[in-house]
Each structure stands twice: as C-alpha cells, then as structure tokens.
C-alpha cells in the first residue's frame, strides 16, 4: 500500500482542566444553588396552582417530590448545558493552531465513568424511595372514607352521584360539592369512552374507563371553587368537558345535599316493586350483572368480581345483605339503586348500570325467586 508518509499531527496544549474551568464551575454551582433555594423557599404557585395553600392532603407531598426533582434536575441541566457551551468556546479551533492539530487524545477514564454512573444511580435510588413514600401515602394514607361519591364520565360531561341521593348531579348545570376535612373516596367509571377526572389543585387524576371502577382517595383541606377538567381525549367536544368543584364546610355540604334530596323526592316516585317480572329479570341479569356475578347464580362464596347471588334471601351463613340489612325486596332494591362500596368490593349504581325503574323491579323479582 503506497501511502504518503506525513508527520503525525500534534495535540493542542493547554494548562490544567482548561482556561477558566474552575471559574465556570463556580458560576454553574452558584446558579444551581440559586435554583435549589428558589424551589426550597420560593413560591411556585405560578407553575403549580395552589402550592402555597394545599387544597388536598396529597398535594403538598406531590409538590415536595416535584421540588426535589426540580432542584436536582435543573442542576444537572445547568451543568450539562453550561459545560457544553463552555467547552465549545474554550476548546474552539484557533487560527494559531497548526492546521492539522488534533484535540487531546484521551479515550476514556474508568474512574470518571464510574463516578457518573454511580452518582446518578444513587440519586435515582433516593428518588425511588421518596416516590414510593408518596405513592404509599396516595394509596393508603387518606384513611377510611367519610364520604363515597361516584363520578361517571359521559361525552361531554361528568355525572356525580352521592349516597342516598336518587338523582344525579351533572357538571353541565351544577358544580360538584365536597366537604372540607372529610376523607373522600371518589369511584370513577365511564358510560361511553375513556375520560379522565382531574382537579389540578388536588394534583390527582384518574381515568374513567368503561367496564372498570377505579377510585381516588383524598381529604380536601381548604374551601374554594376549583376547575375540573377531562384530561383524556374523549371526542369532538373534549375541551368543553369542564366542571366546577366546590369544597365547603361540612355544614354547608350537608345543607346542600339535604336540599338535593328534597328536590329529588319531590320529583320522582319510589320504585313500585310489586310489578316485577322474574323472567324479564333473568334476561336482564345475564345482560347487566353477569360481568361481575356468576350466571347462572352460584352460592355466596363462589365469587366472580362480586359474590354469587343464588341464596340471596335464604342463606343461613349470610342472613343479611352485604350492607348488613335483612334481605327484603326493598333492601335489595336499595343496593341496585345506590350501588355498594364496602369491604368485599364496589358495585356501580343504577345510573352507571343503566337501570330503569321497571328494570329494578324485574331484577328484585328474579333475585327473590332464587332459592
């Protein structure tokens, strides 16, 4: 191979880590410290609404995690961007260099590489610990719910259901109400497509998925009016799927709920259970209930999602219904009406299941006939 012999190129020379390396490092460190101080002591309300006055019990935990990541994440960004810009300027090719000069020919540095593998790993392990802690509080920290409500997503509104209230509250016309200081469980599902229930100030969101009942648990900490938004694309008017949430003192909440109940009682008559048709109920059971209850019905302990309903009225081992009431027709109808949430699971209410008055009567007739 005939290759011309040319002199080997020379490396460029400079002192130490490079001109002004430590000065630049000091500036970047100061910027990082300023960033840390800002996130530790400054107000971040302008990016995280309500950060200085948490609206719910988990909001400040989540904000704390956010601040931790902002402190370290921004510091990493400051150092990476700062060094990239500094290196690009400090080590630029100069006309005074020999035209074929090359940079410093180093290939690696196991020590340095070990540091920048181990340090981020330790940081991420710490972050994992902090994240799991907050996750645990979100899952288990709120305690037994003092109020269980239901949210059902529709195109393009939210439907809110309250215990003992036979009519629904709709986001298009009315705000959702929650009492301050009471642990709340919100059961969330959808009647059509996937939606998402989000109150930015509470910091939690949960998808409303058809066929699944999921929940959000939190305790509202302060009163006020907040926006509810659907944050999963749900169709043409997705962006109009907005609601209001009023968090108010318990007394005001109870007053509001009592008012709603009174209005509901004035509006509708109680379901007439005597006209139920067991055969129609059987067909309806296969359609509406069989996703969670065995069909044909089995004894109580043979569960699918919910218990088997074969001996609902005459099971010596379970003389009462799951809500502890005797298995009368009216009490069965009440569960169908309002749904159930308790130690053995959750069942949606009549709105979520799409049951008309006569459907409830037919189902009660069918269930009472099971022996």
């Amino acid at each position, binding site marked *: 191979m005939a*290759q*011309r*012999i*040319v002199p*080997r*190129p020379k490396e*460029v020379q*400079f002192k130490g880590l490079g001109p002004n390396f430590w000065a630049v490092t000091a500036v970047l460190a100061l910027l990082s410290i300023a960033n840390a101080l800002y996130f530790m002591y400054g107000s971040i309300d302008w*990016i*995280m*609404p309500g950060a200085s006055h948490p609206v719910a019990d*988990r909001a400040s935990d*989540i904000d704390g995690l956010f601040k931790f*990541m902002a402190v370290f*994440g921004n510091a990493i*960004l400051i150092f*990476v*961007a700062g*060094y*990239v*810009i500094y*290196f*690009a300027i400090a*080590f*630029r090719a100069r006309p005074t260099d020999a*035209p*074929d000069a090359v*940079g410093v020919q*180093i*290939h690696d540095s196991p020590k340095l*590489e070990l540091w920048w593998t181990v340090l*981020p790993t330790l940081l991420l392990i710490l972050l*994992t610990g902090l994240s*799991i802690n*907050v*996750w645990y509080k*979100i899952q288990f920290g709120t305690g037994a719910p003092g109020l269980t409500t239901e949210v059902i997503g529709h195109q393009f509104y939210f439907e809110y259901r309250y215990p003992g209230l036979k009519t629904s509250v709709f986001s298009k016309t009315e705000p959702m109400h929650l009492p301050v200081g009471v642990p709340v469980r919100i059961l969330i599902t959808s009647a*059509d*497509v*996937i939606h*998402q229930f989000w109150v*930015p100030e509470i*910091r*939690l*969101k949960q*998808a409303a*998925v*058809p*066929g*699944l009942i999921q929940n959000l648990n939190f305790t509202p900490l302060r009163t006020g009016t907040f*926006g509810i*938004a659907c*944050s*999963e*694309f749900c*169709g*043409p008017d997705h*962006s*109009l799927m907005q609601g209001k949430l009023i968090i108010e003192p318990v007394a005001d909440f109870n007053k509001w709920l009592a008012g709603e109940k009174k209005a509901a009682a004035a509006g509708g008559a109680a379901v007439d259970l005597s006209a139920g048709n067991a055969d129609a109920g059987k067909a309806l059971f296969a359609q509406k209930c069989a*996703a969670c209850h065995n069909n044909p019905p089995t004894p109580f302990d043979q569960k699918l999602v919910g218990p088997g309903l074969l001996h609902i009225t005459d099971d010596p081992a379970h003389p009462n219904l799951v809500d502890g009431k005797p298995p009368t027709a009216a009490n069965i109808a009440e569960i169908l009406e309002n749904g159930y949430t308790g130690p053995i699971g959750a069942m949606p209410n009549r709105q979520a299941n799409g049951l008309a008055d006569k459907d409830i009567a037919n189902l009660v007739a069918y269930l009472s006939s099971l022996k």
Partner: protein
Amino acid sequence: MHAGTSTHDAHEVHGHIHPPPEGFVRKYVFSLDHKVIGFQYFFTGLLIMFIAGSFAELVRLQLTEPAGAIMSHTAYNEMFTLHGTAMVWLVLIPLVTGALGNFVMPLQIGARDVAFPWLNMVSFWILPVAALILFSSMLFGGPHAGWTEYPPISLADGTAGALWCMAIFVIGISSTMTGLNFMVTIMKMRAPGMTWTRMPLFTWATFATALMNMIATVALSAAVGALFLEHVFNIPFYDAARGGSAVLYEHMFWFYSHPAVYIFILPAFGVVSEVLPVFSRKPIFGYKMIAFSSMAIAILAFTVWAHHMFPSGLAPWLQLPFMILTYAIGIPTGIKIFSWMATLWGGRIYYTTSMLYALGFLITFTFGGITGVFLASVPVDLHMHGTYFVVGHFHYVVAGGAVMGFLAAIPYWYPKATGRMLSERMGQLGFWLFFIGLNGTFLPMHWLGLEGMPRRYASYVAFAKAFPDAVFWNRFETVFSFFMMASIGLLAFNVIWSIKHGKIAGINPWGARTLEWTISSPPPYYNFKKIPEVSGRPYDFDQPLPYRNTDNELEQYPEFGQVTMPTPLPVGA
C-alpha cells in the same frame, strides 16, 4: 477475530462486482441499491414532514384564540391526529432508519449493500402506500382520536379509523423487514477485521434500533390488527360492554410505542457520536460505554411501557416496577450525555452546521431527558399526565433529540451522498432558526401543563379564564413554531440548491475516519471495489487510518480543513 474471518469468507464467495443496472426504472424507481433507497426514503420523508408540519402549524394557529381561531373542534382533532401519526410512522422512523441507516450503515461496515436488497426495496415502497392509505382517510372524515387512537373513542372514526389501522399495520411490516435486514447486514457483512468493538457508533445505534424494530413492531401490528377487526367486523376486542378491554389496547400500543421513541432517538445518538469526535478532532470518550448503553437502552425500552398509563387503569402496585425501571433507563442515557460532554473537553472544535446541531442536541435532549424523569415518578405523573407538560417533554425528546440528530446528519453525510457540500451559511442560519424556534415553541408548554392545560384541547376557554397568561404563551409558541418550519424549508432549498451549486466535496471533506470516507463521493454503485481490512477503531485522530486494501490512496492522517467554515460565535482567536 472469529467474526472477521467468517465475514471475509462471505466476501470471497460473492467477491465479484455486478454491473450497475440500466434504465431509469431500475436505476431510480425500483432500485436495489441501498444508497438510492436511502435517497428515496429521504425525499419521501421530507415531503411528508412538510405535510405533517403544516398540520402542526394549523394546530398552533387554532390555539392563538382560547375559543379556537380557525377551525371546528372536529377539524382540529383530525389535524393533531394526522400530525402525530404521520410524524411518528411516516417521517421519523423512515428518516432515521430508512434514510440514514440505509445510506450510511453499509458504507460504514465496508459492505457492498444490505443483506437483502429486494426486501429493502419492498420495505421502501410500502412507505408511499402507507402514506396514501393514511391521507386517503381524510376523504372519509379522517381519524380523530390522537396518534394513539385509543378505543372506544377511535371506533367512532368508522372507515377513516379502519384506514388508519391499515396504514399503521402496513408500515409496521416495512419496519419489521428493515429491522431484520439491518440486523443480518450488521451481523454478517462487516468488513474483515471489523470486530464488534471496532464498529462505528452509528452502526451500533442502528443495530440496537434494528433489534427494537424487529421485536416491538409485532405488538403494534397485533393491537391495530385487532382494532381493524373491531372497526370492520365488529369483533369486540376492546369493547368492555361485550367482554373486551380498552386498557388491553393501551398495553399493546405502548409496548410498541415506548420502544418507538428509542427507535427515533438511538440513531440520533449514533449521529452525535460520529459528529462530535470528528469536529472536536478527538476520540469519542468511553466508546464501550456508549456502545453498551445503546444496547442497555434497547433492552430496558421493552420494560417501561406502562409508565404511559399510570392513571389509566393500572393496578396500583404495578405502577412501582414501571416507575423504577423507567428511572433505571436514565442511567445509560446519562452515561451517554456525560461521555459526549467529555468528548468535547480538550478538543479542537470546529463550528460546522453538523456540530452546531450536535451541540444543540446535547442541551435540548438533556432537557427532554430530565423532564422524562419527572413524568416517570408515579405521584408527580398523576398531576402531569395528559397535560401540555407531556407535549413539551416529548417534543424536546423528539424534535430536540431525534430531529436535531437527523439535522446534524444531513450536512455531515450530504457531501458523501452527492459529492458536493451543503451551503454552510444557509445551514447555520437554519440551525439558529430551528434551535430558537424549538425552545420558543416547547418550553412554555411545560408551565402551561403544570398550571392545568390538558393536551388535545381544541379550545381552552375555562383554562384561559383561570390563567389569562395562557393566551400570550400560546401565541408566543405559535410564532416560534414558524421558525422551525422556516428552518426545514431552508434545509430543503439548501439540499436542492447545493446539488448544482455546492462546493465540490472530495473523498473526505471532514477529515473523518469511518470507512465511508475512504471511497469517492458519491460512492460508486458497488461502494467498495476492494473490500477493505480493518485493524482498529475509527476515532484515533493522531494515528494512521486503521484500514488496508482500500480503493484510494489515502492520507495517513486525514486532515480537517479542506473546506473553510464561517465561525458563528462572536469569539476571537
């Protein structure tokens, strides 16, 4: 040396050179030449990028008014759906694997073509077919449910939704075949002496990408195949009322679509790993760690998909492993970023267009990576999921990472592809337009999202009432988004203008040391008359070239500076 010996034998068997094909159709339309196929991918991808980019501009214009400025909600939903779908499947994947991988990879390993040239040709021709199917859906009202097309809402798209499924299914076949083709090519067709640890880093990245393309795409095909059956034959895979599960689709979709993000980004990593050493006149720092971290990312990418679904119906305990694995993927990514920084240190740095894009990439991609850690944390994600923070994050990764890497690659390999240099003046202006436009467009999205602006909103009246600044920031983003559009327009003009008017490039204008710079520009039909022998890594700038048996008489120490560059930064000598 075992691999070297066996590839050597393969070349002995097929050592003769076929004559180039005759006639326009065999030469330029149904060509089997990987370089021509690379061009075909490039120009098709660039054309679709204009279309999909225009959709994005319509989306941005709509948001200049809280109530929506220019179109109906339905039209807006169609625009962002087509923007996302076309950019992901018809622009990014074809550009970074099809165009760059096809043109560069065989040249870098000293091969005369890919392993299966026919398969390669078919893979390319699927792309325009898929594009026609996707865009023809606009005649049937268009798909509306976002690039994810989650059922049940996507089932409302009817015929257009079925066409969307078809387009994705068909382009998936192309991706899988390209992945297989590249894997076999890299495993079996490296020049003698090119062991795994002497492979150029772009080829390493292409290998990791091909692995993911081959494995992940199948899950997507199954997901959209089932969605197609639900559209057309009403088989209830995803309909909860009839025993299906909407969450199942999300799992299958993200099992592909998370690795897909790495499919875009790994080739960009590869480009940056080539560009930084050349324009710093320095060996890449930590070659092995960069190569292995590509493989680590490719493997970990398959274990993190459900972090897209934290609030979507995942069992709560299942959130934790996905969070921890997602954090873990930050470690190899961090190793890469720190290694690139260390490559700059002590270099002799030239500000070419490619280098500017690579430097910009380091900053914007790091930003996108860090916001990714925020989103990986389950509690914080419960706030951020589905907001503009997510949109900002992934555009920093995709536009600030994958696209910037791609834009660094164009001026770098254009001289090899055409024999002429791209205009540096236009290129550097293009860089500043893109870099400023990118940050101006996507940075404000982060605080808009944290304040409470959900993504995919055709109007934001309630949000603008709560945060009056939102209108200003949305208009700000719209203005800056046109900077990016102008930059891509300038690139297209530059690419066409320079074919005639660019400076003659010569064999090795950058003084680079990978194998493609040892053959003439543009390379002859069969690339290498003689298959070169490799005796070292291509990154040692003070050593003689590690090749023997090359076609041309080469400078032992290829020198940078046959082309003079304007210096963009106002710093003296």
